[in-house]
Structure formats: structure tokens, C-alpha cells
């Protein structure tokens, strides 16, 4: 669990957000869900631009929450979508899916301890 999230960054966020820390975590969970859903839809309809944008958004939010690995995978997914790499895209989408599941679990855990 500790590998998915940068705990020192999260602790800083906890300080910064004060009582709103749990809100931030909830927002992330909600948003990452939405962005992931969008990415998949885009993939299924073959809309590479939309897929790239979704990957970009998820990358940003994940980065801010301290999910560094997830952010990196998103970056590669974004890049692959932009370059229309037919095989790379599903590969990265897969990696993102798996990592996102882990990150969400980690965030829930942190959420519980608030």
C-alpha cells in the first residue's frame, strides 16, 4: 500500500487541507473513477484524442495526490494515444487499470484513518 502513494506528500496535504483532507480524498476517488470511465469509453469508440485527454487529466490528479507510478503510466498512455500506437495503448490502459485499483484501495485506507 505504501508504494502506491507518496506518504510524505500526503502528509503535507493533510497539513495543508486541515479538516478538508478527507474531502480531497473523496474528490480524488470520485474524479479518478470518472476519468478512468471516460478513458475506456474513448478506447472503445476509437477516439484517440479523447483518450489522450482523459489520460492527461487522470495523470494530473494522480500526481497531485502522490500516486507517482499511476501518474507515470497515465503519461505513457497519453503519449501512446497521441501517437496512435495500436498495441501500446491497450497495454498501457491495462497497466493503468491495475495500478488505479491499488491506488484507490490505498486512498480508502488513508481515508479511513482520518
Amino acid at each position, binding site marked *: 500500500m505504501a508504494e502506491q502513494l507518496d506518504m510524505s*506528500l500526503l502528509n503535507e496535504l493533510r497539513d495543508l487541507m486541515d479538516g478538508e483532507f478527507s*474531502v480531497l480524498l473523496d*474528490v480524488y476517488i470520485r*474524479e479518478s473513477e470518472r476519468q478512468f470511465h471516460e478513458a475506456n469509453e474513448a478506447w472503445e469508440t476509437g477516439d484517440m484524442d479523447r483518450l489522450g485527454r482523459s489520460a492527461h487529466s487522470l495523470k494530473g490528479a494522480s500526481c*497531485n495526490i502522490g500516486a507517482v507510478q499511476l501518474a507515470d503510466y497515465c503519461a505513457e498512455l497519453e503519449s501512446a494515444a497521441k501517437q496512435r500506437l495500436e498495441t501500446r495503448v491497450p497495454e498501457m490502459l491495462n497497466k493503468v487499470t491495475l495500478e488505479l485499483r491499488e491506488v484507490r484501495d490505498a486512498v480508502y485506507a488513508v481515508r479511513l484513518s482520518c
Partner: protein
Amino acid sequence: MAETIRILVADDSEVDRLLLSTIVRKEGYEVQQAVDGFDALQMFETYRPQMVLLDAVMPGIDGFEVARRIKAQAGEEFVPIIFLTSLTEADELARCVEAGGDDFLSKPYNKVILKAKLNAMDRMREMHHTMQLQRDEITHHHAHLVQEQEAAKAVFDNVAHAGNLNVPFIKTLISPLAIFNGDVLLASRNPADEVYVLLGDFTGHGLTAAIGTMPLAEIFYGMTQKGFLPGEILREANRKLQGMLPKGYFCCAMLVAFNFHKGTVEFWNGGLPQGVLLRDGQKSLVHLDSKHLPLGIVGDDRFDATTQVVEMAPGDRLVMCTDGIIEARDKQGNQFGFEAFNRIVAGADPRVDIFERLKDAVYRHIGSSGREDDITLVEITMVLPEDLPPPANEQVAESVTGSEEWRLSYELRPRSLRAANPLPLLQHVLMEVPQLRSHAGSIYTVLAELYSNALEHGVLGLDSSLKSSANGFADYYRARALALEDLQGYVRFDFRCEIEAARGSLIITVEDSGPGFDFRSRLSELEHTSRLAYHGRGMRLLRSLCQSIEYRGKGNEVEVVFAWSEEDG
């Protein structure tokens, strides 16, 4: 700043918006959120934030376009835009800058870094605002100055051109820049129908140059019209300017006084380029050099009002200018120069229009250099007295009562003879008589002639035949100055006025302490010569103006009768 600074956070990620807003609010700013490009533009208009945190990549209108539109809408105001970006490619960052971005903030957001950037942007905003205020102040002052300059120019236009003297034998050119640069041209006629012209060049520009013009004009016009001598006018002008101008400011000037009856010009040049006298039909030039300090520098005790006198025959021309012409520069920055000026003046066929030639030459020299012309040029041609246009007659309301029968005696002794010119005072007194007012010119001329004879030939003992020799004039006036220094003697005026209903006579008797002269043979000489020797002109002039002239005793006493009748007008 007293009011809280407003920040707009535009980002399509809710996480990012929440994060940024929290950081920004904690730093003491007020914050609003926009969820995409359209929202951002709308909020910019309604919320009017002072700074914007903008996501570079958003659905709909992208961040770059939003930035461009925000900058356009902000206009002159400086609204810093910090791009929120995870873009790491250099050219993509360049796009941010091109779109008007002032800085970037990369993810993950670090509150320390964001705080530093916001502070820096805020400082820039304030600086920009201060500069704008200063710029506006300067613009306002400038507009004010321009207005003052225009007011000064309007004053100049009334004062600094050739006055109310519109005579064909005086040609003048004084360009607007020359006026701005302090050039002044005044011209007036005195009671004896002499024409005085004063060309001046004040130091400074615009208002600093304008300051001295008014008092100078007042003194010049006032004293000329009262009949004061050139030296007296210059002394008074110097005294006034020295008293009122700041140290380091002065007026280069040249005063020329034309006497058409005697055919002479009396001049004084303090600081202007040499004037030039061209003799009709000859190639030789007479230079009227600057021999004195400009006006306004030294006090009365050190001021030298000594003038020089040169003969001028009808057709002779006097040309003078200020240094604007000499210093007029072409595209390469070369000056027009003294040599060019002298060459054109000397080389021209005397029948050719020197004035136009000089003008053409200077304008050709300046050419397309883009420099404005700073040119003041005056040319005065000597004419015969009968060619003088009649003076503008002032209708003085005549009082019904006034001195009708009176006597006045006025005696001048050495100190007064040396120091003062009595003519303006005497003229002033005579003008108290209403009937004499319309003859002011003739009367003054007569007074001047009688006084000059009494003083110079009588008391000072100068030989007027000196004047007709080659160097005569210069020698004569040098001798005059010397003799004045230790004179003994007196000049005495006696006035008597006899007035009847429609006519009258003014009887003037002048007596001097000199040895007199053999008037009988001189008078008969005059009868028989047609040659207009200078020393004969005085008598002829008196003869033409007065009803009678009678010399008495040794010839050191003369009585003239100036008569008029209402029919003469």
C-alpha cells in the same frame, strides 16, 4: 494593497481546483474557481480577478486561447497568468509563453513554490501599476506644458515679430522654431521718424526664453516712442534684464537706428553674429561686429552702451540674423556656417535680392534632413525720407483747455549734458499743448537737430566736416565720446508759445556756451551749393520744418519759429 487580491483558478480537474484554492486562500487571497475554458472567460469578466491560475490543457477552449483572450480583455492592465502544467516539452512551454503566460506551476503542486510565484507576480503587478500612474502623470504634465507653450507662442506672436511696423523696406523672416528658441524682432518709429529695429536672441527655449521678451518689448517700444536714444534704451534694457533674468540667462541683441534725413544708421551689437552693410552698387561689405557683452549679464556700472554710426545712402542694405542660420545643419550634421553666409552676401549682385538668396541657400542646406528651420533674418534698405510711409496717426482727444500762452526755460550743465538726453522730457512737456500734438514728429526733429548742433558743435567743439571724410564717422563719434568726458559749458532751451484761434507758433531759442561760428558765410555757402554735404543737411532740414531760423550773436544762439495753422492738419 488594502483590498484582498482576487485569484481565478481555472482547471477541469476537481482535485486540482480544490488543492489550489486551499493553498491560495491560506495565503490570504480571495479565490474563485472555473471548471473549463468558457467558464474561465465568463468568470474573468464578472469576477475581475487580479491574477489567474490556468490549466494549459482543458476540454473545449484550450488554455492557450483562454490566456490570449484574457490578456486582450485586460487591455492596459497587467493581469499575470500562471499556467498549470505537467507539460515538460520545451516547445509546449514555449506555447504557454507565446499565449501570454507569465509563469508556470508544475505538478505536484507545492505550496511554497506557488506562494513564491504569487508574491512575485503581485510585486510585478504593483510595479506595473505604479509605472502606469507615472506615465499618466507625465502625459498630463506634458499636455499642460504644451498648452503653456502655446500660450507663450500666442504672446510671442503679438510681441516678437516686427511690431506694427509694416514698411516695404524692412524684410523679415522669423520661423516658429526660432521664436520658440528665443528670437525676438521688434521695430518701431520714433517721434523724429527714425526707425529703430531690435533683433534679440534669448538663451533657453520655450518659456525660459519667453520670460525676457515682454519686458524687453515694453522698454523698447515705450522708450523709442518717447524719443529716447538707442544707448539709453539699451542701458535700460540691460538693467531690466540683468535684474530679472536668472544668472546664466542673457539676451544677445543688435539695435539699429535709421535716420533717413541724415542717411545714417546707429548700431550696437552685443553677442549676435556680425551684421552686414551692403553698399548699393559696390561689392565691399561693412561688418557690424559684436563688440559688447549680451544684455542682462553685467550691471549698469559695467555696461557699455556705446553705439557706432555709419553712413547709409538710399539703396544701401543692412542684413542681420541670429545664430540659428549659421548653425542650421544638414543631414550629415554640418553647419551652414559663417563662410557660406558671407560668401552669399558678398558675392551677390547688389541688385539681386539678398534676402531671398540667403533664405534659399539655408533651406537648400537643411534640405531633407528633417530638421526644423530655426531662422531669423532681417534686411533693411535705406530710403529717402520722402519714401517713408506716413506714420499711423494717433487721434489724441484734444482737451479744449490747455496751456495757451507760456514760457519754459531749461538749462543743462555739464553733469546733465554728460548723463542725460533731455529731449524726451522736453518733448513730453511740449506735448502738453494740445495744438502741438499733431506736429509731434516735426517738433521732435527740430529739437533733436538744435540740441545736437548746440552740444556737438557748440559745447564740444567738434568739427562736423570730419564726418564727410573716409573714416569720418568713426573718428567723429570717437572724438565726441572723448569730449563728453571732460566738458565744461551749458546748453539752454527757451520755449515760448503764442496761440491764436486757428494757428500758432512755437518759438524755440537755443543757446550754447561755445564760441559760435561764422553763420553768415555758412548760410550763403548753402545757398550756392547743391552738394548734400552732411553738415549742411542739418540746416536744410531745419529750414524745411521751420518758418524761420535766426542766428544771433557769435552764432551760439539760434531762434527758430515753428508755426502751424489748423488748415495744415
